[in-house]
């Protein structure tokens, strides 16, 4: 039970936190306006020089392996709907960690998506 709980926390906080770190790294690199392959490659190389990117990818990897670990001890029908909480955590992280402005409209959209994702997985049949 404790193992499952730890895995769950890691999926939500490490996975979502990793994505937020990656987002921070990309904001540091700056807005991409040139979509030619060479320019995209240069942007990715620049992103790899930002420590947030490495931290983010590492945390996402921890989140992914925690998901695999959780799936080995709990049912898919429980695990995936439960991870819909990551949308709420993502919005909170966007607000407090990335300084994004989350309007009531965006909160409403995030809530609808989170419930929708949970239903899609529960209703897999």
């Amino acid at each position, binding site marked *: 039970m404790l193992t499952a709980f730890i895995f769950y926390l890691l999926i939500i906080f490490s996975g*979502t936190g990793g*994505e*937020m770190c*990656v*987002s921070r790294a*990309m*904001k*540091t*690199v*700056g*807005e*991409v*306006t040139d*979509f030619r392959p060479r320019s*995209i490659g240069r*942007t*990715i190389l*620049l*992103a790899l*020089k*930002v*420590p*947030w990117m490495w931290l983010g990818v590492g945390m996402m990897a921890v989140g992914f392996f925690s998901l695999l670990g959780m799936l080995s001890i709990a049912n898919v029908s429980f695990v995936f709907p439960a991870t819909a909480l*990551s*949308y709420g955590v*993502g*919005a909170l*992280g*966007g*607000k407090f960690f*990335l*300084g*994004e*402005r*989350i*309007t009531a*409209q*965006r909160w*409403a*959209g*995030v*809530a*609808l*998506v*989170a*419930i*929708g*994702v*949970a*239903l*899609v*997985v*529960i*209703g*897999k*049949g």
Partner: protein
Amino acid sequence: MPASACDREEEVSTKVATVPSARKNLRPKTYAMILLMVILNPFGNIFLGKGMKRIGAMSSWAPSDVFHFFFRAFATSTIWIGIGLLLAFFVAYLLVLSWADYSYVQPSSALANGLTALLALLVLHEVITPLRWAGVLLICLGVFVVGHTHPRTTEQS
């Protein structure tokens, strides 16, 4: 964050100049990139899933079996197509995060769940339960609501 990390961040942000005129094109290019992500992710997963099913489960955790499992996996073209599509998805994800809010991109990319359900119905002829359709509908509604907020609410560095 350590001081060296801050220095590195400042150094990198000065290397790529932001273009103010690009702001007016923000919404169309955000939609286009999210659409790309929403297509690439489910297709990548489907190819990867098909490839893994073709090679079958790992018989044991013995080193030789693990080696053979990965050897067969990497010798399967379907798996490489899946990996390629997922890599392309990740690049699109990185690019869109260079200008759009994370709290905008994360829920919007959930549209992939809708496409997966549609692919399961049309390609794999799976039965989609009414509950699942209700979920897809809610996701679409949620993405529509989020999509009507501005993709970027922070100042570009």
